[in-house]
């Protein structure tokens, strides 16, 4: 049975990827392609938040630091050192991973509200530092970055590739490779420690991977937007990613992808006044989901009641078919 569900999940994922890959062939509306690119960048960002805060349970209120930081690294590398853009993406990720060590080694020994405050403080300190040195970082203006891919279609495939690879890695780590230790840490850290799990190692590892992915997403976003501003480091960015992950389902990396696509498509299809208040809608959705559906969409759909309904239906159909086959055979 488990083999069957695994195959089913794989099948659904492959269908999703194929549909996404075919979108440029089906439509030549650049706007839709632009929205899918945005969604996939946000999907990486949201699921990287989900890895550290959903899977490992370490609340991170400063995750935008790694997203915006990746963008700034790209700006510095391309403008000052003239490094090839293709090299910039992994370099941005690696430097954000290094930054995550600076943030993580001291702060991950704290937990609960203290951890939340420290991550928030780190992110806001860096943002304030960027604003405090306008001669180096150009303050509020930010940098303009040379695009490395021209046109929507190449950007589209690169963003899709990045999303598949990075979310795949995070999914593998969060839901398969480190599933048990991270769940133990999330549920009760003291007990996890007492039962011999090196909690510091696993927390740091997931933090490292999460910020690497976030940095790469930020770097790609900087190339795509051709600009980096301190806006990407704000609390609002963190809340947006958090909302996507919470709506999709905390602790299921793939849920954040669904949340990111749903929210981006909803907000981009709005117009006028409602588009102006989209962040209000995001925040209201975050509070609504936290209060009434803390499991998120994916977990609610996969809850036992609905699952058993589905299985009953399937097994009923299968039985009928089996009976018919037996009848034919006899």
């Amino acid at each position, binding site marked *: 049975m488990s083999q069957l569900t695994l195959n089913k999940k794989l099948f659904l994922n492959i269908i999703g990827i194929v549909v996404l890959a075919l979108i440029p062939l089906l439509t030549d509306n650049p706007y839709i392609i632009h929205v899918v690119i945005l969604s996939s960048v946000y999907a990486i960002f949201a699921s990287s938040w989900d890895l550290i805060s959903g899977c490992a349970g370490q609340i991170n209120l400063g995750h935008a630091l790694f997203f915006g930081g990746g963008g700034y690294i790209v700006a510095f590398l391309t403008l000052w050192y003239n490094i090839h853009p293709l090299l910039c993406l992994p370099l941005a990720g690696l430097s954000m991973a290094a930054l995550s060590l600076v943030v993580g080694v001291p702060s991950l020994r704290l937990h609960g509200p203290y951890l939340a*405050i*420290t991550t928030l*403080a780190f992110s806001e300190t860096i943002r304030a530092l960027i604003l405090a040195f306008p001669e180096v970082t150009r303050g509020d203006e930010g940098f303009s970055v040379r695009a490395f891919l021209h046109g929507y279609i190449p950007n589209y495939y690169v963003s899709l590739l990045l999303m598949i690879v990075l979310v795949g890695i995070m999914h593998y780590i969060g839901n398969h490779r480190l599933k048990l230790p991270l769940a133990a840490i999330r549920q009760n850290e003291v007990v996890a420690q007492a039962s011999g799990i090196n909690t510091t190692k696993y927390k740091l590892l997931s933090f490292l991977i999460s910020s690497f992915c976030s940095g790469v997403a930020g770097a790609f976003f900087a190339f795509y937007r051709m600009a980096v501003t301190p806006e990407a480091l704000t609390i609002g960015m963190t*809340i947006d990613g958090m909302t996507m992950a919470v709506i999709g389902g905390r602790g299921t990396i793939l849920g954040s992808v669904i949340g990111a696509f749903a929210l981006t498509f909803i907000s981009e299809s709005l117009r006028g006044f409602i588009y102006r208040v989209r962040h*209000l809608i*995001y925040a209201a959705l975050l509070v609504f989901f*936290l*209060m009434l559906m803390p499991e998120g969409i994916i977990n609610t759909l996969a809850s036992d009641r609905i699952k058993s309904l589905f299985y009953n239906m399937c097994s009923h159909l299968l039985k009928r078919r089996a009976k018919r086959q037996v009848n034919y055979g006899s």
Partner: protein
Amino acid sequence: MLQVLIFIELALRALLLGALYSIISVGFSLIFGVARILNFAHGIQLVFAAFLGYLFYNIIGDSITAALFAIFISFLLGAAIEKIIYPFRHPEIRTIMLTFGLGRILEQILYAVWGPVYIMYPLYISGSLKIFDISISTHRIILAAFAISITLLLWLFVTKTKLGKAIRAVAQDEEAAMIMGINIKRIRLTTFAIAGALAGTAGLLLNSIYMFHPAIGWEYLGIALSIVIFAGLGDIRGAIIAGFILSLTETLIGYFISPLWRTVAYFAIIIITLLIRPSGLFRRSG
């Protein structure tokens, strides 16, 4: 003479800001003590009250009455936040995200209604006081006196009155307080409401000297957090002292280096305190 003037100006500013920051962070600390909840919406509540006051001023036309209305509304808002958050306080991570989200909602309501504007609360007492050739704005002196007296009253309220003692009892040990016949639910609701009203008062007073825009609440949240962390979470006396210490630091940094470094300093204080002495500076046993 100029140096004396600068010294007096800086001292007055430090006193005024210190009193206002103490008011903000005592509210924050009271909430943490009573409900074990970090209210990340606290900074936005302050800005929200200032915008409400501005709105009421445009309707009524009298700044004192409008301020009283705004403070009353933020009193109710505090109670409403308790009603929204408290049933969902487990697990902790959810509460943190919930208060964060509520703060974002309040901020975005301000954006939706006013847009990205700067406002200043029209409460100004004109005139200046002359002492030995030095003139100081009366507005600041009166404001500082008012803020310091609120801080003193707050301290008396928490230590001397029955309600304040009940709040501290609940903060110390909820079950023991319940056995002593304290209505915990009512105390909790009152504490959130009082904290809201305090935030509103501080917001209106701050807004009569500094301009506010909708997103500045996060900055004041950072200030409140750093004071509360510096003093130790839930320590009310420490929060008052730390408010004055940090406002003095801020004033000196703002004068000698650059006002841009203010935020850096506050958040750096949070990080350093949490890494070196997470229990706070004034932590006593028990």
